C-alpha cells in the first residue's frame, strides 16, 4: 500500500498556499505549523484506487 511522502504532500498543498480558518478569519500557516502538519501525514496510507469515480453534478 502506498504511503504519503513529504514531497507528495508538499505538491498537494504548497507552503505558500497553506492557510487555516479561525472563526471567520483566514490565517496563513507559519513555517513551523506547516512543517508539523506535513510531518503528521508522512507515512499515512494513501487512499486506495478502488474509490468510485467522482460524481458528476
Amino acid at each position, binding site marked *: 500500500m502506498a504511503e504519503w511522502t513529504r514531497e507528495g504532500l508538499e505538491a498537494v*498543498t504548497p507552503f505558500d498556499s497553506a492557510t*487555516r*480558518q479561525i472563526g*471567520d478569519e483566514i490565517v496563513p500557516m507559519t513555517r513551523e505549523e506547516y512543517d508539523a502538519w506535513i510531518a503528521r501525514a508522512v507515512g499515512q496510507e494513501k*487512499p486506495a484506487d478502488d474509490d468510485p469515480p*467522482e460524481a458528476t453534478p
Partner: protein
Amino acid sequence: MPFPFTNGDVLTAADLNASSGLVLVKSQTITGTPTSVTITDAFSSTFTNYRVMGVNLDYSTTGDEVDMELGTGGVHASLYYGVISRYPFSGTINDVQYTNAAPMAISYTNGSINAGIVCVDIYAPYLSSFTSWAGTAGGIRGMRVNGFFNTSTSFTAVTFECTVGTFVSGKFLVYGYNDG
C-alpha cells in the same frame, strides 16, 4: 406550563427555554481553501453538551482522513483515546484504536461531490472535566468514531483539520443540547 402548548396559553421565558431541544449556537461557512477550520466561540456555559455538524463539505482530495482537535489546531500531541471504524466504498472495514494519541480521525475527505458530512456529539467541552465525543461521517467513505480527551480542560472551540489537502467549501453548524 406543560408541553404541548395549546391555543390561549400564555408562555413565559421559562416555558420557551424548556421547550427547545437543540438550539443553534453558531453557523460558520468555510471560506477560501483552508487546511483546517476552527469553530470559535462554539462552547460556553450556556449548554453542557453539543452537536457539531459539517454539511456540504467539499475537499481538494478524496479518501484522506480529517482529524478533530478540541480547541485551536496544532496544539495537542497526545491524550486522545478512542476508536474509529473505517467504512470504505469497497474492501475491508477496519477499526483503529487510539491510546494517548494525537487528535484522532473523525471523517474522510470527499472531493467534488459537495456532500461530505460530519455529525459529532461533544459532551461537556466547556466544563473543566473530561471531554468525550461520539460521531459519524459520510460521503464517498464513512466513519464511526468515539473517544475522549484524557485531562480536565475547558474548551471554547473545536478544529477540523485535513491531514492531506484542504477544505474547498461547506459549512459547520454548532447546536447546544437544551437540558432545561
